[in-house]
C-alpha cells in the first residue's frame, strides 16, 4: 500500500512548483494513510473517494474538488467516523492548514485565514489543543489597532460637541441661586438645559457579527464613511473650541418694582432681554496664537498644540509630534489665517488614528521572548475600555471642581459666567490678554470640565504612576469589580450601556443573545400576553438575573444554566386596572357566565404569563428574584427572553437553539448553510413542529442537523412566547433530545427534557472551557490563537479554584500575558 502512495508522489509533475511537497510527503500522506485509506481505497472506495488516486496537482480542477471534499470532512470533524480513533489534534491542525493553504494558492481558497479572524468562526481553532496543555508558548496579542466603539465615541465626543443647542437659560423666576452682583443683584436665577438631545452622526456604526452576537471586535475597520463623518464632526468641534457655539439665551427677570414682572423679555428698564452666548470655547488657551499679528512665536504655537493634545488625546505631545503639528500643519495653514491654522491642528487630531483606533502596539518594555508590554498610556485605555464605555480621564483634567455646589463646566456654566456674559454682551472673555499659564490652566479646567468625571478613575491612577505592572492591573480590577452590579431599572430608559461596568452585562447579553427578543416580531393575536413592550421587560428581567448571579459570584455559569430563579414584574398600570375594575363591577352585576371576567382578561394580557405566572396571584417584589417551579425554569435558556429571541415569527426554532448550544456551550461548529439549500420546514397544521422537522433526517440534511436538532428539540416544552407547555396541537409534547459529538464522552447521551440536559451541561468541563473561550473573545476583542492556550487554561483554573467566580476568571484573563503583551 505504502509503495503505491510513494509511487504516486514520485510521478507528480514538476510543474506544481508552488505546492509544499515536503509537508505533502511527510505529513499529509502519512496522515491519510493512517486514518483514511482503510475505507477510501481503490477496491471499494467509500463515498466514491479513492485516496490512492489522489495527488497534489492543484492546477487541475478535479484535484482541487477532491481536496475541498477532504478539507470539509476533516475540518468539520465528519471524518474519520466518530467510532474510529481520533487523529492527534496537533497533527490534524497541521493537515487542515496545509490543505487550506494549498487550496488558497490554487485560487480555490476556503477562506480559512479570513474566517479565523472573525468571532463567528473562532471555534475552528482546536479545542483540544487549546486546553490539553501541550502548548507552552508565551502568550501575546499581535500588535494591533482596535476601532473605537460607537459608545466610546459618544462618550468622548457627543456629550460635548454633538448636541443641538437650544434656548435654555433663564435668569429670573424663583431659582435657588441668588444673583450677587450686577443690574439684577438680589434677584433669583434659574438654569435650564442648554441643549436638546444629541444631534450628530456617529462615525462608527455598530457592527454585529450575527452568528457570534459580538458587536465590538478588533477586526472591525474604520472606512471612508467613518472618515467623512469624523471630518464633519471634527470641524464642528474645532469651531466650538476656538470660536464657541452660539446659544441663544433668553432672560427673564422678576423685578419687584415692575408691573411686567415675570414677563419674558419684557421687564422694565430696557435691559437686554436676550443675547447669544458662545459656549464651549477655550479661547484663553489659544489667545496668543489667535491674537498675534504675523507669525506667532514657536513657543506660543507649541503651547497651543500642547493644549490640543491635552484636550483631545489626554496626553502631552512628544517634542517631535509638537514640532510636526506646528510646522507641517499650523504654519502651513497660516496663509488661511491664524484661526484656521489653529483649527487645522484640532481637526487633524480628531481624525488621527489615535482618535479613531485604540493603538495597542506594545510601547512598553521588551521581554526576553520578544514581547513588548503595553505602555501605561496603552494600558489605561485597554483596561478602562474592557469594562467601561466612558473615557478613563475626567473630561480635561483629573482634578475635580473645588466648589462642590457649582457643577460648572461646558454644559452649564456657573452663575458668574452667565452674569459676565450678560453684562459684557460676550464681547470679551474675562481672561482675554492674560498671559499666566497657570491661570490659563485653571480656566481650562473650569471651562472644560463636564459634570461627568471618569467613572473608572483609571486615568488618575495612571497619572500617579500606579498603572504599570500586572500587579497594578490586578489591584485596580479588584477595586473596580468590587462594586455590586445589580440594580432594578425603573424603566426601559436605563439602557444596558449606562449601568456600572456595562461591559460585563454586555458580555452576557452577547453571549446568550436574549436581548434580541424585541427584534422577533410575533403576531400579537397569537398570544394575548405577548407584545413588543413585554419582550423589552423580559430582556430587562434577564439582565437583572444575570447581574444578580454575577454579584453572588458563585458557580456563576452553572447557576446561569440551571437556576429556577427569575425576575419579572406583575405590576399593572393604574389606568388599565381602574378601567378593568369598573368593567368588573358591571360584569359581576350582570352575572355573566361562560366567559372571562374583565380582570381575568387583563391578567391574561400581562407579559408575566410568559413565565406561567398570573399577575393576579403573585406578589410583586423587585429586590429579590422569584423561585419558579424547577421543572419549568432551568437557567437563562428557559427565560422567555432567550426562548423568544431564539424563535422565529411563528414558532420555535430548534435549529437555532441547538446551534447556539453547539457553538456557545460545546465550542463546536456547524457547516455554513450550503448555498443551494433552501431550508424550509413544510407547513402542516395537524403536525407538531417536531413531526414536521422529521424532513431534515434525510441523510444530506442530517449531516449538519444532527449537530443542532437533538440539542434544540428539548425546548419544545415551551411556546415560542417562552411559556412552558405540556401539549402541542392537542398532543402531549415530546421533549427528548440528545447531547452528541460534544468532545466529552461522559456528556454525550440522550436526555429526557431541558432540565436533564441543562444539568448535564452545567457539570461539564467542556462547557466551562467553552464559556472561558467566549469570555476571552469578548474581552480581548479577537479570536484565540494556539499561543493563548496557557491564558485559557489559567482562566479556567481561576474559575474552578474560586468555586465558580466569574470575577476571578475575568481577573485572570485581564492580567494574562495575552492581555498585557504585544508582539
Amino acid at each position: 500500500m505504502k509503495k503505491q502512495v510513494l509511487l504516486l508522489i514520485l510521478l507528480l509533475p514538476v510543474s506544481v512548483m508552488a505546492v509544499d511537497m515536503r509537508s505533502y510527503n511527510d505529513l499529509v500522506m502519512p496522515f491519510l494513510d493512517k486514518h483514511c485509506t482503510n475505507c477510501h481505497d481503490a477496491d471499494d472506495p467509500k463515498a466514491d473517494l479513492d485516496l490512492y488516486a489522489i495527488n497534489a496537482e492543484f492546477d487541475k480542477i478535479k484535484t482541487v474538488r477532491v481536496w475541498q471534499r477532504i478539507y470539509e470532512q476533516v475540518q468539520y470533524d465528519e471524518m474519520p467516523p466518530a467510532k474510529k480513533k481520533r487523529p492527534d489534534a496537533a497533527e490534524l491542525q497541521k493537515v487542515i492548514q496545509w490543505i487550506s493553504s494549498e487550496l488558497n494558492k490554487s485560487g480555490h481558497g476556503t477562506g480559512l485565514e479570513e474566517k479565523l479572524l472573525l468571532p463567528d468562526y473562532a471555534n475552528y481553532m482546536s479545542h483540544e489543543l487549546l486546553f490539553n496543555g501541550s502548548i507552552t508558548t508565551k502568550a501575546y496579542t499581535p500588535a494591533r489597532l482596535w476601532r473605537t466603539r460607537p459608545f466610546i465615541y459618544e462618550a468622548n465626543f457627543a456629550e460635548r460637541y454633538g448636541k443641538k443647542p437650544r434656548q435654555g437659560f433663564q435668569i429670573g423666576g424663583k431659582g435657588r441661586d441668588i444673583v450677587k452682583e450686577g443690574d439684577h443683584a438680589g434677584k433669583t436665577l434659574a438654569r435650564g438645559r442648554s441643549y436638546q438631545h444629541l444631534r450628530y452622526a456617529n462615525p462608527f456604526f455598530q457592527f454585529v457579527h450575527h452568528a457570534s452576537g459580538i458587536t465590538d471586535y478588533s477586526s472591525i475597520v474604520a472606512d471612508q464613511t467613518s472618515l467623512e463623518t469624523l471630518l464633519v464632526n471634527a470641524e464642528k468641534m474645532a469651531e466650538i473650541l476656538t470660536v464657541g457655539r452660539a446659544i441663544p439665551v433668553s432672560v427673564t427677570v422678576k423685578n419687584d418694582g415692575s408691573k411686567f414682572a415675570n414677563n419674558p423679555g419684557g421687564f422694565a428698564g430696557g435691559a437686554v432681554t436676550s443675547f447669544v452666548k458662545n459656549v464651549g470655547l477655550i479661547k484663553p488657551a489659544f489667545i496668543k496664537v489667535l491674537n498675534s499679528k504675523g507669525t506667532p512665536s514657536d513657543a506660543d504655537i507649541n503651547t497651543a498644540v500642547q493644549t490640543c493634545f491635552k484636550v483631545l488625546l489626554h496626553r502631552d505631545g512628544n517634542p517631535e509630534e509638537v514640532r510636526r503639528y506646528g510646522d507641517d500643519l499650523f504654519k502651513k495653514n497660516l496663509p488661511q489665517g491664524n484661526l484656521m491654522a489653529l483649527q487645522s491642528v484640532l481637526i487633524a487630531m480628531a481624525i488621527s488614528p489615535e482618535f479613531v483606533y485604540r493603538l495597542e502596539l506594545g510601547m512598553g518594555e521588551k521581554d526576553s521572548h520578544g514581547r513588548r508590554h503595553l505602555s501605561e498610556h496603552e494600558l489605561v485605555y485597554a483596561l478602562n475600555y474592557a469594562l467601561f464605555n466612558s473615557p478613563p480621564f475626567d473630561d480635561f483634567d483629573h482634578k475635580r471642581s473645588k466648589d462642590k455646589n457649582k457643577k460648572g463646566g461646558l454644559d452649564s456654566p456657573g452663575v458668574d459666567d452667565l452674569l459676565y456674559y450678560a453684562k459684557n454682551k460676550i464681547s470679551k472673555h474675562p481672561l482675554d490678554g492674560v498671559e499666566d499659564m497657570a491661570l490659563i490652566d485653571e480656566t481650562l479646567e473650569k471651562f472644560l470640565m463636564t459634570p461627568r468625571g471618569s467613572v473608572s478613575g483609571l486615568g488618575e491612577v495612571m497619572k500617579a504612576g500606579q498603572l504599570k505592572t500586572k500587579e497594578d492591573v490586578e489591584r485596580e480590577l479588584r477595586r473596580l469589580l468590587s462594586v455590586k452590579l445589580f440594580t432594578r431599572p425603573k424603566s426601559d430608559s436605563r439602557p444596558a450601556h449606562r449601568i456600572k461596568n456595562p461591559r460585563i452585562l454586555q458580555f452576557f447579553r452577547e453571549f446568550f443573545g436574549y436581548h434580541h427578543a424585541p427584534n422577533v416580531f410575533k403576531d400579537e393575536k397569537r398570544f394575548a400576553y405577548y407584545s413588543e413592550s413585554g419582550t423589552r421587560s423580559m430582556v430587562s428581567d434577564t439582565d437583572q438575573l444575570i447581574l444578580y448571579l454575577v454579584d453572588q459570584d458563585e458557580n456563576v455559569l452553572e447557576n446561569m444554566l440551571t437556576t429556577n430563579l427569575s425576575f419579572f414584574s406583575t405590576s399593572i398600570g393604574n389606568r388599565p386596572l381602574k378601567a378593568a375594575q369598573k368593567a368588573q363591577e358591571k360584569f359581576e352585576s350582570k352575572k355573566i357566565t361562560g366567559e372571562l371576567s374583565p380582570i381575568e382578561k387583563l391578567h391574561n394580557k400581562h407579559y408575566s404569563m410568559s413565565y406561567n405566572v398570573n399577575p393576579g396571584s403573585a406578589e410583586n417584589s423587585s429586590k429579590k428574584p422569584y423561585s419558579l417551579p424547577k421543572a419549568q425554569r432551568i437557567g437563562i435558556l428557559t427565560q422567555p427572553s432567550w426562548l423568544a429571541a431564539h424563535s422565529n415569527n411563528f414558532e420555535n426554532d430548534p435549529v437555532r437553539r441547538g446551534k447556539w448550544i453547539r457553538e456557545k456551550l460545546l465550542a463546536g461548529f456547524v457547516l455554513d448553510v450550503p448555498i443551494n439549500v433552501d431550508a424550509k420546514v413544510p407547513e402542516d397544521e395537524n403536525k407538531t413542529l417536531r413531526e414536521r422537522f422529521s424532513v431534515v433526517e434525510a441523510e444530506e440534511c442530517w449531516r449538519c442537523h444532527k449537530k443542532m436538532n437533538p440539542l434544540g428539540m428539548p425546548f419544545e416544552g415551551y411556546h415560542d412566547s417562552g411559556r412552558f407547555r405540556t401539549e402541542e396541537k392537542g398532543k402531549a409534547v415530546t421533549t427528548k433530545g440528545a447531547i452528541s459529538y460534544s468532545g466529552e464522552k461522559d456528556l454525550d447521551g440522550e436526555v429526557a427534557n431541558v432540565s436533564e440536559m441543562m444539568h448535564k451541561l452545567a457539570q461539564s468541563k467542556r462547557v466551562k472551557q467553552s464559556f472561558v473561550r467566549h469570555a476571552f473573545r469578548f474581552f480581548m476583542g479577537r479570536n484565540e490563537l494556539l499561543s493563548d492556550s496557557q491564558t485559557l487554561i489559567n482562566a479556567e483554573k481561576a474559575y474552578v479554584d474560586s468555586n465558580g467566580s466569574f470575577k476571578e476568571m475575568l481577573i485572570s484573563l485581564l492580567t494574562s500575558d495575552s492581555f498585557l503583551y504585544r508582539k
Partner: protein
Amino acid sequence: MKYSRRHSIKTLGKLSLGSMAFTPFMNHLAAQRTTGATPKRFLFVLKSSGLTEEHITPPAYRPFLESPVDKVIDKPLQGVALPETLTSLDPFKDKMTIVQRISGKMCATGHSGFYGALGAFKGSNTKKPIAHTIDGYLAKKFPSVFNHVGLKTGNGSESVAYPSISSAGGGKQLPYQCNPMIAYMNLFGSIAESGDVQKKYAASGNILDFVSNDVKKLKRQLNGAEAEKLDYYLEGFDALKERRIKLTGMQKILNQNAPEVTDTFTSPNPTHHLEAHFDLAAATLISGLSNSISILCDDLQTNYDGIGIPGTVHGIGHGATIGEHNSEQCRDLIRKFHLELLSGLMHKLAKVPEGDGTMLDNTVIVYLSDNSDKHHSFANEWPLLLFGGKFNGRLKSTGRYLQYPDYGKQGHRTIGNFLTTIVQAAGLPDKHFGHLDLGLSDLDQEGPLHELLV
C-alpha cells in the same frame, strides 16, 4: 483577509495643493458640452415588504394575471387607466414600462432579498456581499463627485445605516444615509459653510495630507491584516480630498440647485424624511453631484404615522388592521405616497433642458421591492416599474405592459435579465448581470430582456 484598495489619485497627489484648490472643477455638464456625450443617470427606489402584481397592473390587464401565460404579453399603456395608486405617474406613462413575472430565485427569499433585488445573487444581512449590485456597478462606471448616494428612512437619531441592499463589489457594502440633515450637509454643506469655503477646503487638503502621512507611518509598524485594516481608512483620504476640491469649484451650480431645507429635514417623522430624501435626490441628480442614487423608502420597522398609518410595515405585512384601514388599504396608501414623491422628482427632472430633451430623458428610474412580490416572498414573481423612455437611444420603455411567461416556461426571464437590460442600455458590454437560477438550468437565462432594448 482580502482587501482591495482604491488606486490613489496619483495625478492629484502630484499637483501642489494651492494650485489644485482653486482650479475650477469642470463639472460633468460642462464636460459633456465639449465631448458631446449623453449623460446617464440612475435612480433605484426600493420599498420593503413586497410589491404584488395586482398592485401595479392596470385594471384592464388584470385578466392576464389569472391564466398561465407561456408567451410574452406586450401591451401599450396608452389608452388604459393605471391603477388608482399609480395615477400620479400618468404624465410619465410614455416613459414607463410595467414589468411582470420575472423571477428572482437566485436571491434570498423571506423578508428580504437583501442585495438580490439590485444584484441578482443570494445575499444576507449577516454576510458580506459577494459581488456588486447594479447601483454600485453603475456608480463605478459613471462616477461623479459622489459615486453613489444611498438614502433611507430610519428612526430619528440614526445616521448611517448598512441595510444590506447595495454593494460596490465583493465585501464592500454601500452605506445609506438616514438623516436628511446630515445628507444635506454632506452633499450641499459646502455652500452653507460660514466663511470662505475655498480657504477652508484648502486647509482641509493640508489636514488630510498630514493625517494620511501619519496613517501610512503607523501602517509600517504593523503586520499583515492589521496593516491592511488601515487601507480602508486610508482610501478615504484621497477620495475626500478630491471631492472637496471638486465641490469648491461647484459653488455656483450647488447654490442654484440645493434643495430648500424645510422642517421635513429635521422632523422626527420618517415620512417627512422620505420627502426630504426625494428632494435631495432630485437636487443631487440635477446638480450632477452623483449619477447613481438609491432610495430605500422603508424597512420592516418603519412607521408611516406621518400619512396616518401608525403601525409598522412589518405589522401591515402580516395583515394588521391599522385604525380605519385594513392592511391592503395601508399598503395602497404607502405605495401611493412613494409614487407621488417619485412623480414629484420626475417633474423636477423634466423641467431641466438637456440635449434635445430634458434631464428626465437621460435618467433610468426603477421602482421595486427589495423582497420581490410578497411580505414573505418566494421570488416567483418580481413586479416592478421602469422609467427610461428611449434612454441613450437604446431603451424602449415607452409606455408598455410586459408580462413574461410563468416561472420555468420557455421564455421565462429573471431579475438578472432585467438588470442586464439596464446595464446594456447604459452602453456597457456585460453579457449578463448577476447569478443564474440553478432551478432553471434548462432555460437560456443569460442576456437582457430583448423586448426592452433597441
